[in-house]
């Protein structure tokens, strides 16, 4: 008896559900354009080597989604994100984007984080003529030359050269002018590219290269490298390194007392909260690249509101608690796409690409316009100097003056302290 009643209940439920479904289908098309969400798809590194940055990027994109939905959505429709974990594995990426476009039928796509997972997605975007917003792909579009690819890293049209241009410009401002330079970097993709650019810039500045070596990425002790550099006594030391090496090099340089006019350049990692906190005063005097720092010259509309929301989430999520390096750019990437969609009044990929190509956008990372290869039309790689860092608190890095901008002049917020040993 009991059994039957349940069964009967289920049957009635099914019947009702079917009726409801029919009703929905019959009125569906009329409602769709109004209420159906606009779906934006991407793969993101949520596990694997780049997961730290990937998670931070996801948080930023989610903040953007909440912001735009609170403001009434895109084209009056709510925005929905469809994303998959690419496990920082380039081989997973083509499958993810094919599925997003063919099966999930997303309306727009954006990239995951980093060159490794961006490059394999470009052919898929090209195949379907989709606009592809790229988040920190270093020269990823070089081989493809895809005209609907737009990249938010502010390295400009010649990333390799621009990466260190500011460093050498700043170096040549020092008095007396430096004459020699040492170049050192890890034996890996990014540092090698950075060193190629640094060599060109050093030669253009008329500096004599007295040391030019790479070290294996597995290096543990950097004392021998620093000692060798000290023995040739260069005026300027340019370093292109990944986070663990950056920490090792900064410590060795402090311990062994490097005498140089300028030290730093292309060290990845010293922008991250974890290393800044751990290295503290040892960072003083270093001149290094950055994308955004809390200086008054870079106080763009909306950036503080965004960072406040991000920082409230970041601590618990176990990602960079400050979020100056990548998150604002992940947010700006979405702002640009949204503005283009609103301005063209639809989801026509052709029109959106045209619009992004030919307009300037006001974003949380400043005004952005794109050049022919989809990179920023003009580089805005910052060179900042770490100054007046007293202890190992994270707080001090949220205030202006700990990382003053020296280059480009338009954004300059302080003066170079040289030589390096004086700034320490």
């Amino acid at each position, binding site marked *: 008896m009991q059994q039957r009643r349940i069964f009967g209940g289920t049957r009635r439920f099914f019947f009702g559900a079917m009726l409801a479904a029919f009703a929905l289908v019959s009125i569906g098309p009329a409602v769709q354009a109004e209420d159906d969400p606009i779906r934006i798809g991407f793969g993101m590194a949520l596990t694997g080597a780049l997961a730290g940055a990937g998670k931070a990027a996801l948080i930023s994109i989610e903040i953007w989604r909440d912001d735009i939905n609170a403001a009434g959505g895109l084209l009056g429709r709510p925005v929905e994100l469809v994303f998959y974990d690419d496990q920082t594995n380039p081989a997973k990426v083509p499958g993810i984007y094919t599925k997003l476009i063919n099966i999930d039928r997303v309306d727009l796509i954006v990239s995951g984080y980093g060159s490794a997972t961006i490059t394999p997605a470009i052919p898929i975007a090209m195949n379907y003529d989709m606009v592809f917003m790229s988040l920190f792909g270093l020269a990823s579009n070089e081989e493809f030359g895809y005209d609907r690819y737009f990249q938010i890293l502010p390295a400009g049209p010649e990333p390799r050269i621009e990466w260190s241009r500011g460093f050498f410009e700043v170096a040549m401002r020092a008095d007396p002018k430096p004459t020699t330079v040492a170049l050192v970097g890890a034996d890996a993709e990014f540092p090698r590219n950075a060193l190629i650019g640094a060599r060109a810039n050093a030669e253009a500045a008329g500096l004599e290269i007295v040391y030019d070596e790479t*070290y294996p990425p*597995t290096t543990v*002790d950097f004392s*021998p490298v620093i000692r060798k550099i000290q023995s040739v006594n260069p005026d300027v030391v340019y370093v292109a390194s990944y986070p663990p090496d950056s920490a*090792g090099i900064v410590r060795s340089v402090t*311990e062994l007392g490097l005498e140089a006019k300028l030290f730093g350049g292309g060290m990845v990692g010293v922008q991250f909260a974890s290393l800044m906190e751990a290295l503290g005063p040892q960072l003083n005097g270093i001149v290094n690249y950055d994308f955004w720092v809390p200086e008054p010259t870079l106080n763009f509309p909306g950036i503080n509101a965004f960072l406040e929301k991000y920082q409230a989430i970041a601590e618990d999520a176990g990602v960079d608690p400050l979020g100056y390096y990548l998150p604002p750019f992940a947010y700006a990437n979405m702002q640009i796409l949204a503005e283009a969609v609103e301005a063209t009044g639809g989801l026509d990929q052709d029109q959106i690409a045209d619009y992004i190509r030919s307009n300037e956008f006001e974003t949380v990372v400043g005004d952005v316009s794109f050049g022919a290869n989809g990179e920023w039309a003009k580089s805005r790689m910052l060179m900042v100097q770490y100054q007046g860092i007293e202890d190992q608190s994270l707080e001090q890095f949220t205030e202006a003056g700990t990382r003053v901008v020296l280059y480009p002049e338009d954004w300059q917020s302080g003066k170079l302290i040289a030589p390096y040993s004086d700034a320490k």
Partner: protein
Amino acid sequence: MLGGFYASVALGLTLVFGLLNIVNIAHPAFVVLGSFLVYAANAQWGVDPIAMGVILTPLFFLLGMATYSVYHASFEKRDNESLRGLAFFFGLMFIIEVGLILQYGVDYRLVNAPYIGKVINLGSVTLPLRMLVPFCVALVMALGIFLFLSRTYLGRAIRAVAQDQLALQLVAADPVRIKRIAFGIAIATACVAGALLIVINPVEPAAGRVYIGRIFAIVVLGGMGSVRGTVAAAIVLGIVESVTSTIYSPSWAPAVAFGFLLFALAVRPAGLLRR
């Protein structure tokens, strides 16, 4: 200086791989696990990293014993230890890495201690305490293990297990129990090595992989199970790397170090110091 740290990691492996013939490829992962626990204590309560490493050794000893029990029950007893055992330790390595990622995220972690960033000057040579302190701790630990293996009853039993398991059974000793203890000790040394690692360099969950090749090379070079040999091999490898970096070029350091390994094995196939 670097050799001391290498020795501290290789020491545990020399016990396990050299004496017990277990290819514990997860050993560096245990080292990184130690680093993270030390980091957590340091960040939370400001405990000295190396002291914390020593405090944690009993915990790691138990962890090692448990690991060996699982390994023994599932592989060694059924006599298919070589390849599947390797897969087991590979799996273990991934589990430790992913566990650390879930708990701490993928960021690099560092510790604070009074001796980090300071140097002492011996004539014209500047020695960073960040390298010197781990070097001394590693030597003390190596000496401890050496004395344990040569002077105590249990230590001699461990060496006996390596030579002839059957003979040990004949004198009514339980080889499995002895092996379990040896494995526990090896993992306990990994914990101290982890503390040393995070004093020297920042650590992230997958940092252990970098060292797998080097550490196995040191154990082989040292003569498979000889504590003195392992320490000598680690120091020699560290010196060869440093000297090559200084005099020639850092990119050649691993090549020269491993070239030296090949040369040494060609001349002395049994390793530097035979056990």
